[in-house]
């Protein structure tokens, strides 16, 4: 059932086995996976079914340091969460993304891709995607050819694209789930702690509505699924999980930057595979990325590049187009336009990149967050080197040339560099409480019954948009919780 929390009698105490806080991609996936079981699940959502400025304002915070989006425009605070505003780009992390890589400080997941594969396959259905197949060769065909890169350093990959809006897709299912009750306009503002000997857990969540109503939720297990900034914010504001000063640190996004222009060696080169194109019920979009071998040998972070807008050629480039044609394809037509690459980069985990609390408070009295997004020399070196490798691969294949727009210094980035609104890492997962906020199951270290879901648990980000992994991890957590309650 769906309920309006504002209509609950004041000081009500709701009870359930599992309380999921946040009805976005993670929370709804979790609630669906737990529906039809023999226990009660509460799903609390801060917003309503529609966008609401007052609820949205609870996201507001400060941005300090590197330019970033205003925090209240990064997310959507309503049933369905930020699936209301995403582009639907899906692909799994690569196997190497899970490894502890000695050239990436603080890298390594507590499990590998194999452990997540069954959940990725199930996540495909949740996100209404095609079957789990992300090999570019599986989807390419004569009319949609791959670039003929005979390279052991650069390969093609493919995103499946379906902007599934969870609020619309799953509202009815949640409404009809016999054991799931979802409360709208219900904001968790704090927790009461239960201490029993050495065991410390959450006794109840304190919940407030913007109209002044307030109630509590008592549950055997709580799951925080409010997003990469809000998860950290609520833990920091509640003084939970931060015994090693890790909550809010290691904030990562995927730096997005146009840092390369591609000039084909001939006008006839087909790039259609790399533009979004329909495939069954979804779209596909090809990209270029580095092979695992190149990432190891060159000590690179993850990266992928999409085609962006085309541009007419300035004079030197017109001349160059003619030269390239003669070098690579004599007799062909020279290209008349260049095309820019938009790069999605992996950001190395960085403890100085973080979410902290400010002295400002929101309408419910919870401290507002401040985001300090910081990139490092590791990120820059990797991005620069990756482009050098891409430039060589494109030239060696005779498909064209790359113009690198990065400066060579360690920290300089093009001014237009931005994030992807992918908030990751602030409650990172690690089996060692001194290195992670949550354990490999997603449970907050030091607390017996508080779990975190969503991209805040990612120890590293790869260069894959996070939603498919968020959903896969939520399904994995659901299996764990079902097992716990058995």
């Amino acid at each position, binding site marked *: 059932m769906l309920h309006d929390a504002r209509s609950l009698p004041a000081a009500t105490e709701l009870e359930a086995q599992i309380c999921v806080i946040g009805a976005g991609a993670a929370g709804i996936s979790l609630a669906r996976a737990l529906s039809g079981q023999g226990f009660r699940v509460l799903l609390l959502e801060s917003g309503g079914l529609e966008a609401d400025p007052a609820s949205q304002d609870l996201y507001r915070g400060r941005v300090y340091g590197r330019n970033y989006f205003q925090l209240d425009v990064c997310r959507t605070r309503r049933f369905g969460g930020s699936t209301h505003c995403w582009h639907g780009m899906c692909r799994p992390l690569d196997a190497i993304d899970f490894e502890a890589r000695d050239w990436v400080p603080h890298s390594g997941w507590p499990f590998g891709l194999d452990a997540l594969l069954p959940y990725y396959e199930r996540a495909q259905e949740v996100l209404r995607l095609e079957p789990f197949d992300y090999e570019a060769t599986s989807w390419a065909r004569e009319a949609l050819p791959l670039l003929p890169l005979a390279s052991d350093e650069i390969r093609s990959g493919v995103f499946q694209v379906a902007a599934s809006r969870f609020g619309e897709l799953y509202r009815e299912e949640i409404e009809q789930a016999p054991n799931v009750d979802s409360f709208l306009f219900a904001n968790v503002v704090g927790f009461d702690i239960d201490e029993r000997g050495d065991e410390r857990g959450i006794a109840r969540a304190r919940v407030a509505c913007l109209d002044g109503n307030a109630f509590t939720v008592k549950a055997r297990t709580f799951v925080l699924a409010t997003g990469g900034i809000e998860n950290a914010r609520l833990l920091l504001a509640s003084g939970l999980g931060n015994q090693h000063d890790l909550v809010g640190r290691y904030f990562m996004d995927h730096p997005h930057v146009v840092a390369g222009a591609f*000039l084909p060696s001939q006008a006839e080169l087909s790039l259609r595979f790399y533009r979004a194109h329909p495939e069954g019920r979804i779209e596909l979009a090809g990209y270029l990325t580095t092979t695992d071998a190149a990432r190891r040998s060159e000590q690179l972070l993850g990266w992928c590049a999409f085609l962006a807008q085309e541009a007419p050629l300035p*004079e*030197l480039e*017109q*001349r*160059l187009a*003619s*030269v*390239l044609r*003669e*070098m*690579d394809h*004599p007799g062909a037509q020279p290209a008349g336009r260049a095309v820019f690459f938009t790069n999605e980069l992996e950001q190395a985990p960085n403890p100085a990149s973080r979410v902290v609390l400010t002295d400002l408070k929101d309408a419910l009295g919870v401290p507002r967050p401040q985001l300090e997004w910081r990139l490092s020399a590791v990120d820059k070196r990797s991005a620069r080197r990756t482009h*050098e490798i891409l*430039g*060589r*691969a*494109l*030239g*060696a294949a*005779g498909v064209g*040339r*790359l*113009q*690198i*727009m990065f400066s060579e210094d360690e920290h300089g980035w093009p001014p237009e560099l931005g994030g992807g609104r992918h908030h990751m890492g602030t409650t990172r997962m690690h089996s060692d409480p001194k290195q992670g906020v949550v354990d490999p199951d997603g449970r907050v270290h030091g607390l017996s019954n508080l779990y975190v879901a969503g991209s805040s648990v990612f120890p590293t980000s790869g260069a894959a948009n996070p939603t498919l992994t968020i959903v896969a991890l939520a399904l994995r957590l659901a299996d764990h919780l079902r097992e716990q309650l058995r």
Partner: protein
Amino acid sequence: MTGSMRRREFLFEFLCGLAAVPVLAALPGCSRRESLRVALLDFFADRDSARAVGAAYLESAPEEDDDERLLRGLTGGRVREAEWEALATSDPAALYEQVRELHRSDFAAGRTLQLSGWVLSETELRLCALLAQMG
């Protein structure tokens, strides 16, 4: 470009009639080395574009503005130079295929240079620069 280099170019063009006739390598009076130069300069059909790219490169790398150095850089040594000299007179098409092969292998071997950020093979840039030197 130095005065002595310009004089040498002038003499060379006088001897070989470079600008007017594409395959002049076999003309009497051209040394094997000069024949190679002629054949290489004839690589591009669109010479104006190659010359413009070469001039931009020489402007950014003035130390390369030396025809001997460019030719040496292109051939990479005496062995290939001799082979190319022979092909220049006997089979220019095979010479051009070898140039293209070298150009492709430049990328794989990391023998690349940048011009306004463009990652280009040493071969293609030096070939253009050689043409630009002719003015």
